[in-house]
Every structure is written in C-alpha cells, then in structure tokens.
C-alpha cells in the first residue's frame, strides 16, 4: 500500500472521495509523521484532535453519501501567524506566550469550512520577520534537506514560513498556510523544493492573522505542486468585510482553469534581476526555466524594471515602519507576556515586557521602523520609500504592457546553513531581493521548484503576474513543473 503521506492534496481529496482510503487513515498517517519528526521543530503546537475530527466528519459525510467538501479529508499545517480558535497562537514570540485566541482567522475558518483538518501550528520566524526561521523564540526549524557533501550541516528551511516549508517537504503535511510579506512563502518554498503562491494583495483576508506589515502581508498556500496550491488558494481567498483592504471579487476556479499550455503568452525576463555575485547555478536554472517556458509555447522577451535596485531598501523601511506600529499592542496590558518588576510603573512594565518578549530581530525592526517614522527623518525615509514603492509598481505596469508574466529566480542562493547569515542582517535581507518587488507592488507571485544545485539542494523559479492574474501565474508554474519533472525529496534522516 502507498504511504498515504506521499500523497498531495488532490490525491488525498480524490482518494477519500473515491473511497480508496478513509480520511481517518490519512489523518493518522500524518499525525504519526509529525510525531516522528520532532527534531525538525516544524510544529509549535500539535492538534491531532482537530485533524481527526475533520477526518471523521469527512468519513461520515462519505458514508452518508453526501457531496464531500473541497478539502474533505485533507489535514494541513497552519502557520502560527494565523489565529485559530482556542489553540495557542504566539507568532513564534515569547510576548504572546500563553495567548489563545477566542476567534478564528478568516483564512483558517475558510479552510476548515472547506473540510480541512489541522495537524498543528507551524513554527516560523518571530512575527514573520526573518528569512531562515532562526528568529523563532522556540528554536529554529531545521530543513529536512541536507547537502550531498556528506556533511550534516543543518540547513535553513527559509523563512518566515519555514515551519510550513519544512513540514511539507518532509511529508509531515500535504499542504500548509503561509504568509508572505517580502517573500516569506516563495523563498522557503524554493529552499525546500515545494511550491507556494502569494496571491494578489487583498485576495486573502488578513483578519485574524497577526500583523507584521499590513500593506504587504498576504496569506497564501504552500504545497508540493501547483495543482495543490490552486486547490488550497480557492479555499483561502474571498472577500471579507472585516478587512478593509480585502478585494470584493468572486473567487476564480483556479484548479479547473489550470493549463500548462503557454501558447499566446509572452513572458518577460527582467534584466535587472541579473544581480552581482549570483551563483552560476541560479543563472543556469533561470535559463533552463526560460527554455521550458518557450517549450510550453510562450514568447520570451527581455523587459526592464529600472527601479528594482531600490526595492529592497524601500521594503526595509516600509515593513519595519508598519511593524513598529503594529507591534505596539504587545504591551503587557491585556494578553500575552507581562513583566512587572517590583515597584514598576506603567513605563517600566512596557519596557520590561517588551524587552523580555521580543527577540532581537523584532527589536531591530521596531527600532528601524520607529527611526524612519520619527520627526525629522520621516520625509527622508518613509516618504521616499513610499515614492519608490509607487515607482516599482509603475515599473511592473509598464512591463506588463509588453508581457503577461515575468520569470525570475526566487532567491539568489540555495538554502544556507543555519547560523551562516545570522550575524549579518544585511546578508540575510538580501535573500529577499527577488521576492520583495512583487510584494511592494501587491502582485501575485509563485515559486516552483526547478531543479537541484551541485550540492543537491533545491532551487526555485519565480513567476510574477499582473494583479488578479493568479491563473496565469499558476499555469506558467504548471508548465515549468511539468518540464522540470522535479521529484527530488529529502531523505529521511530524522
């Protein structure tokens, strides 16, 4: 019998519908996998009861001859940034230790309403700030991947959705939620050989998702392939009156619309993404991806996104600025950690609580954000960055007058070793160089695995689309996926 944990979302869904296996069997198989992989530290909270309850509901519906829901029988992982009712939510920060929301985020609620069960809450970079998962207050996630050099260096699963990427690539869950502020879905997907899509800003409600940078944060699915991403995305998106930035649009049938035929599509190759010191393997993969797109029928042109080099600095002003304000609510007054030294006044309590509760990367970004918004610096930093953001969006608009989609590498390198970049925040920030521009412009963007580097580590290709053209992005992803034939998976050493 096949190992049920080798199945993806579509295969599980279809198998449960057809009665090939029960949802309960699927849930149990993944629960056992989660149990056996604790060393990866992918889960912060395990919720096997939730997964089993959803599976039993699916099995009961099947037994009763009812039409099964879109995700009936599919157990998933939930990034800990999502508030799920009565389950601890910490955003991987000590400051939220002990916090258990009384409410269900819109996205998790939609997934559960679609029949999905939850295996647990996934580890992440603290408050989604990081590209390696090393900023989690509860220990970093370890990537299931290892280099083929015989060494056992622990690798980063990417971030901030590193628990999600590690869990999916280690077959601990078939799919998971992620959130992407500057690449937090796409970069970990690339590092672990899986797929992930950040939809157009406003497609997924942010209600109930712990905020990092409100104008950039966007939820999206991570899964093993493009089809599974499409299925998940359909369940996650939709208008939410509780989020003022939510798009009031119907949800397209992305899975039904999947097509790997790119005839008639023009794919732009942005020349500014050819950055200094890019490893030759990344460049080679990019060229390979271009060829695959051409093979799928697309016309390839070079396009210019002239303000690309300003994207990263603008991002590292805007995101910390918003974060410095968004994280002000963690003050020890109403929930989470409260550090009240003997004889402390209110200010002392704020200082002690926030000093003890926030990790150093979070503090760094709060300080940067506070600085760039402060009197005398606001215009030089925040206003300038906002202007750059507008220019970057215009770059994309102009490029999309000539092409339908853009193809780039997802990250400038394969997964690095844990600890390798921790001491140098700038080096860490540079990981987001290819993913940040699409975030600033609110565009749909996806990473799909393209191949392995010489060390046997996955590399990803990124497809960026016009606003609301998730279908185009998914289809190009599918075309590459079919030609890449990526089947590599980490060998279980855990």
């Amino acid at each position: 019998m096949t190992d049920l944990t080798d199945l993806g979302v579509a295969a599980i869904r279809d198998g449960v519908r057809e009665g090939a296996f029960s949802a309960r069997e699927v849930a149990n198989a993944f629960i056992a996998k989660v149990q056996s992989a604790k060393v990866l530290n992918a889960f912060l909270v395990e919720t096997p009861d939730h997964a089993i309850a959803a599976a039993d509901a699916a099995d009961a519906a099947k037994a009763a001859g009812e039409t099964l829901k879109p995700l009936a029988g599919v157990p998933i992982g939930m990034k800990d940034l999502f508030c799920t009712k009565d389950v601890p939510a910490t955003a991987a920060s000590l400051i939220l230790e002990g916090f258990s929301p009384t409410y269900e985020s819109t996205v998790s609620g939609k997934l559960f309403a679609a029949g999905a069960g939850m295996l647990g809450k996934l580890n992440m970079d603290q408050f989604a700030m990081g590209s390696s998962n090393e900023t989690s207050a509860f220990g970093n996630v370890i990537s299931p991947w290892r280099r083929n050099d015989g060494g056992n260096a622990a690798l980063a699963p990417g971030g901030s959705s590193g628990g999600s990427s590690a869990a999916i690539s280690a077959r601990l869950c078939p799919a998971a939620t992620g959130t992407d502020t500057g690449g937090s879905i796409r970069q970990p997907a690339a590092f672990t050989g899986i797929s992930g899509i950040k939809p157009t800003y406003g497609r997924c409600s942010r209600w109930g998702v712990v905020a990092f940078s409100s104008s950039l944060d966007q939820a999206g699915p991570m899964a093993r392939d493009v089809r599974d991403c499409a299925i998940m995305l359909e369940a996650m998106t939709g208008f939410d009156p509780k989020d003022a930035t939510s798009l009031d649009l119907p949800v397209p049938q992305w899975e039904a619309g999947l097509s790997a035929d790119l005839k008639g599509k023009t794919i732009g190759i942005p020349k500014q993404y050819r950055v200094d010191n890019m490893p030759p393997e990344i460049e080679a993969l990019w060229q390979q991806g271009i060829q695959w797109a051409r093979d799928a029928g697309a016309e390839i042109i070079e396009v210019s996104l002239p303000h690309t080099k300003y994207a990263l600095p603008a991002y590292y002003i805007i995101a910390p600025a918003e974060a410095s304000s968004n994280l002000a609510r963690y003050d020890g007054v109403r929930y989470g950690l409260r550090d009240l030294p003997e004889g402390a006044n209110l200010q002392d309590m704020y200082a002690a609580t926030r000093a003890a509760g926030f990790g150093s990367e979070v503090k760094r970004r709060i300080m940067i954000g506070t600085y760039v918004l402060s009197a005398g610096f606001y215009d030089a930093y925040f206003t300038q960055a906002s202007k750059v953001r507008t220019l970057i969006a215009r770059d994309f608009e102009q490029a999309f007058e000539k092409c339908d989609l853009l193809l780039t590498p997802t990250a400038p390198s394969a997964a690095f070793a844990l600890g390798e970049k921790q001491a140098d925040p700038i080096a860490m920030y540079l990981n987001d160089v290819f993913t940040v521009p699409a975030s600033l412009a609110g565009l749909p963007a996806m990473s799909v695995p393209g191949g392995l580097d010489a060390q046997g580590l996955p590399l990803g290709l990124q497809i960026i689309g016009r606003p609301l053209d998730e279908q185009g992005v998914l289809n190009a992803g599918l075309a590459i996926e079919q030609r890449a034939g990526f089947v590599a998976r980490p060998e279980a050493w855990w």
Partner: protein
Amino acid sequence: MADATAPYRITGETGEWEVVVGLEVHAQVTSNAKLFSGAATAFGAEPNTQVSLVDAAMPGMLPVPNRECIRQAVRTGMAIDAQINKWSRFDRKNYFYADLPQGYQISQLYHPIVGEGAIDISLDEKNPDASGKRIGVERIHVEQDAGKLMHDQHPTRSYVDLNRSGVALMEIVSKPDMRSPQEAGAYLAKLRSILRYVGSCDGNMDQGSMRADVNVSVRKPGDEFGTRTETKNVNSVRFVMQVVEQEAKRQVAVIEAGGRIVQETRLYDPDRGETRSMRSKEDAHDYRYFPDPDLLPLELDDAFLEECRASLPELPDAKRARYEAAGITPYQAAVLTADVDSALWFDTLLEAGAKPVAAANWTTSELFGALNRTGKDIATSPVSPGQAAELLGLVADGTLSGSLAKQVFEIMLETGDGAAKIVDERGLKQTSDTGAIEGVIAGILAANADKVEQYKGGKEALFGFFVGQTMKAMQGKANPQVVNELLKKALA
C-alpha cells in the same frame, strides 16, 4: 460688522495686551457603533461591556470604517459651509498608554475629511445689537477616542475601561480668530448648537461628549502671535471662558516678570480657577504619524454627498432669519433658535397654526418663564406645542384675554388639561357683553364718586384704577378693550 463693544484687553504693567484664542473641540459622533468596530457606544454602561476584539486590539484584528460616523462628519462640515474632501485618509498617531490598546490612535493628520469652514457668532445671542464675528474653522477630522483609566478603585492598581476605546470623535479645529473669553464662549456655544441641530453630536459636555482644548497666547495689539499654551479637556462653556481669562492673565504676568511662555500642555483646575502645567514641548511625544496601512483612503462619491446634504435640517442662522422675517423680534428669534429642542418645539407650535408673533411672545415669556420656575426644560415641558396652539387660538379669537390666558395656562401646567376644556369647565371665557359691563361700571363709578371728581379734575392716571376695579368685579373675564371703551364713555 460693527464692533459695539470695546476690544477685550488685559492691562498689565507694561500696557495693554490682547489675547488670541483657538479651540480644538472634540465632539463625540452620534452613532450606535464605534468608528472602526461594531461595538455599542451608550454612555454609562458597565466597564468593559462595550468592547469588541478590535477595540481591545487583539492580535490580527482590523479596523473597518463605520459609514454612519463618516456621514455625520460630512454633514457637520456641510453645516459650517466647509470644504468637504472627497478624498481623505486615516493616519496612525503612535504612543503608548494603558488606555490605548492598539498603541496608536487612528486619526487624520495629513488629509482630513473636512477642510476650511466658518461659524458666525454673536457676542450676546440674546442681543441682536451686540457685535457679531465670523470665526474660521481650519478643519474637521475624525478619530478614535481612547479608553479610560481608573486610579481610585484599588490601592496599588489602575483599572482600564475600554468602553470608550474606539468611539468616533470629530476634532473641530478653529483658527486663532478669537480675541476674548466672550468670543471663545460664544464660539463653543454656537458650535454646540450647530452640532445638536445637525444631530452629529449630542453636545452633552458634562458626559464628556464634547470637550475643548483651549489654545491661548497673548501679544501687544498689532504684534506677531505669541507662544501659545494648550489647556486640555475643558468641559463647559463657562470653564473655557475662565481658562482664557486666567491663562491670558498668567501669561501676561509671566512675560512682564521677565519670563517667557513655553509651548506646553496645561490642565484646568475648576476648583482653584487656574491652569497648571501638564507637560512641556520638550517632553512632547513624537507621534510618528503615518498612513494607516489597514485602511484604504476614504473616497466619497457625489451620491453620498448629496444624501448628506439632503439630510441636513434647517440650521440656527437660517431659522432665525425665517423667524425674523415672520415679524418675530431679533431677540426672541435668537432665544428661540439657540437650542435645537426649543426651536423644534416652536416650529411645531407654528405648524399647529399659532401666529408667529403672538406665539413667540407667549413662548419666550410665559412658557420659558414657567419652565424656569419649575426647573424643567423644553424636552420635559408639561405643555405640548399642540396644547399651546389651542391656548393661543383662544386668545386670537377673543375667547380669552391676556390675563385669562395666564390663568388658563397655570391650570394647564397643574392639570395637563387642554385650554378649551378648562375654559368650558371653569367658565373662564371672556365677555364682551356691553350691558353687563355697563352695569358693573355704573356701580363702580357710583361707589367712587370722589375719584370720579378727581379724574374729571385732571388726574387721568385714575383711569387705570377704574379699569382694575371693573376687571376685578368681572372676575377678569371682561374683554379689556370693551371695558376701556365703555369706561371712557361713562367718564366723559
């Protein structure tokens, strides 16, 4: 505009000083729900019973603008002839305090919803001859209120009540156009009146629905503006006037003693009648305002604006003009329109058929006098406009004399009965029966032959005596005009 009174001046050791005043008024928007959440806003609820997840700033919670609050701000702007900005935006004002769950207040710094407007004030609303003045309004923006801290509930702890957290406020910022305590008081009173007419704020200053930050500076007349201080949260018209007066005097004293005024925030202590420093500019927060990324810019379409405009009631100045055009004296028109409840009561009286001039005379003297006497206000008036119209109708058609009407009104106040019923039951109808009146007059003249002599000898003031005696004998029911005529004839 004629300036009937001398300019307000503070006389210091070095000469005369002028005071410059601007007001920032926070007015709670009348709405069932808060600015960005669905939580209720009723005054006086048990602590923390009107708090949504958004108001408590739970993780992942998001603000969604409440259209009714926006509508009220737009209507208010229209009522002061202000520019309505079809594109505005919310900004975050960041600071830490225990009554501010988000760690920021959502406000509008850079792009307020309402731009420049103006309010006409009269320095004595009751006196049409008093000087008037136009006070500029810089802007109106909407923002969230904070919660409330209670420090007196526990020896070592402070309690937080978030009921008010997130309630919508309009901040109405005047230009520094006021030059005396009286002008500041008149501006606040007029603003309050307009808000109550529009229905965008109940104006209950004692419940904190309206409060003013008073900006005061002094200068030698003709000089540049001086450094201002801001006295926060002043909650009555009287206190605002006191703050202006006290703060101006204090500033003059400081400057004349060789000191200088520092830009600072002050508090008013009504018990001691003085302001005191709260924090200086040096300790002022850097609020790090920036556009709230949780909210899209607020864009108002024409249909919405038209709906707002169509829903505006007749405003005090227009109403007052209409009353004056109907022959009501300017003084009475001012009295009747000063408060929306009185004005609406009076309009209903007119609609019920009462003649404007008689109705205004009666309302401002008889009714308001009775309400004053009994400690009631127009909202709790024991006599309805319909009942008053009935009473005035009986005067108009000659059934009741003025004095009889007074009697009937007193009985109406006591019993709540209608005027016609009282007249019928108690026989208070005025008589014009000349025969009966002539008989009474003949008796009175016979009994007072000496006074008749004196009258005829030139002491004409005695005529009033004969009228009084006749009316008394007729138990007040004689038609006074008929009595006059018949007396004149009899004494001729």
